[in-house]
């Protein structure tokens, strides 16, 4: 990610300009303009609880960062070069969303922390991502099924958050809707191709659905806390759930797959959001954070 930018762009510019007089300069390392919210007003509109907003942004950022790390693990391992490009690009979109959301978190939680502080210097118990995002990649069918569930859920959620009272979160969500629609499309098309493909691909897709299904109720349970647009708006929560279920039913019906029951077990509420994770998150973070922790304070 990045160091935070200097409060005074003039100084940033002057240090960069040296040695780049040809009018076509390219910088291999930091441009000094790497705060994704560079210049965006940090003000918190009256009537908004900064702590609650920060918790909401942090959870959504964690979902995106952990998902992007798993997607990145497919590089050099995907079935085709084009699929590798797609998964990496989807991960890149999610990292972009995570950076904006971490930056917003740092603006409103009172700590003034940078995006790097959240991404690299928190341990697993401090992460608030849903557990589905952290599960190992498994085979391609599992990764596609997980991406379908997560992108359908995040898209439905961001559609509502585009109307959020905080203008920064609202803008991040409105932007994200366009990207997430592509992610969901990619996952849905592969789910149909594999489910309606060979006996083996069908078997693996069905197995993946049974593997993913127990983690789906947690996505909906997480909405009861802070993720929806207005506190206590049960209608928004059930509308998001309806949208996700409609997509999963549409895809599985087209693919000739059985959608397993998605009954919400009582203990699903808030596991990842409460900081209770599977054993898979710590190793993921160890790899993600190793360089930043080995060289604290380094800039690049």
């Amino acid at each position, binding site marked *: 990610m990045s160091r935070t930018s200097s409060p005074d762009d003039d100084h940033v*510019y002057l240090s960069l300009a040296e040695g780049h007089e040809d009018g076509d300069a390219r910088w291999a390392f930091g441009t000094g303009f790497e705060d994704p919210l560079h210049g965006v007003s940090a003000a918190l509109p009256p009537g908004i609880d900064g702590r609650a907003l920060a918790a909401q942004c942090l959870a959504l950022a964690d979902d995106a960062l952990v998902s992007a790390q798993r997607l990145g693990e497919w590089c050099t391992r995907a079935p085709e070069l084009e699929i590798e*490009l797609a998964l990496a690009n989807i991960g890149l979109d*999610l990292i972009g969303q995570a950076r*904006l959301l971490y930056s917003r978190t740092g603006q409103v939680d009172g700590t003034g922390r940078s995006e790097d502080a959240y991404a690299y210097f928190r341990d697993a118990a401090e992460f608030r991502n849903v557990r589905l995002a952290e599960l190992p990649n498994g085979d391609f069918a599992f990764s596609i099924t997980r991406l379908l569930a997560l992108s359908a859920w995040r898209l439905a959620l961001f559609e509502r958050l585009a109307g959020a009272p905080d203008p920064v979160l609202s803008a991040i969500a409105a932007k994200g809707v366009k990207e997430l629609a*592509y992610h969901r499309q990619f996952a849905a098309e592969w789910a149909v191709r594999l489910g309606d493909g060979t006996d083996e691909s069908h078997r693996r897709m069905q197995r993946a659905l049974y593997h993913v299904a127990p983690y789906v109720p947690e996505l909906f349970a997480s909405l009861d806390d802070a993720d929806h647009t207005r506190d206590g708006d049960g209608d928004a929560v059930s509308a998001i759930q309806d949208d996700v279920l409609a997509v999963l039913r549409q895809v599985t019906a087209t693919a000739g797959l059985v959608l397993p029951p998605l009954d919400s077990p009582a203990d699903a509420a808030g596991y990842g959001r409460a900081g209770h994770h599977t054993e898979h998150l710590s190793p993921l973070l160890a790899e993600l954070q190793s360089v930043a922790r080995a060289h604290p304070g380094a800039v690049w």
Partner: protein
Amino acid sequence: MNGQIRRALTVAEQVPDPELPMLTLADLGVVRGVEIDADGTVTAILTPTYSGCPAMAEMHAEVARRLHDAGFAHVRTRTQLDPAWSSDWITPQGRRKLADNGIAPPGDAPRRPAGPVPLTLGATRRTVPCPHCGSPNTEELSHFGATACRSLRRCRACLEPFEHVKEI
């Protein structure tokens, strides 16, 4: 003051895009405007194309650098997230330059009705004419290409692969 704003805006708009250098930032539609404070500080306002676009930092730096070179002593840039960038903002001139460089320009961005974003499966894709031979008989190889904003296609008539700036 208005003359200075117009001059600063022209400088900002003529900066080339780092990923698609045949386009200026004006062609790409990411320059939202320029403001000049009472103390003479120039602020250029840019909108990101994609949330994770790695070229944004360089766009900000290059805009600031060129404004300095143009004689503006105090320069800032600002990110504007809302409204989100759309490929519809690529100018007609930008679309011609893309096609001249073998990159198929985007069609109209999807118009979404109210309510949930619909998922269409197995529907016929939009026609993207080949930028090399003009044939409408092209196919998508990958919806995700070398950068976030491009997909990979191939022409079934002249068999040439080509890139396409996605509708968003």
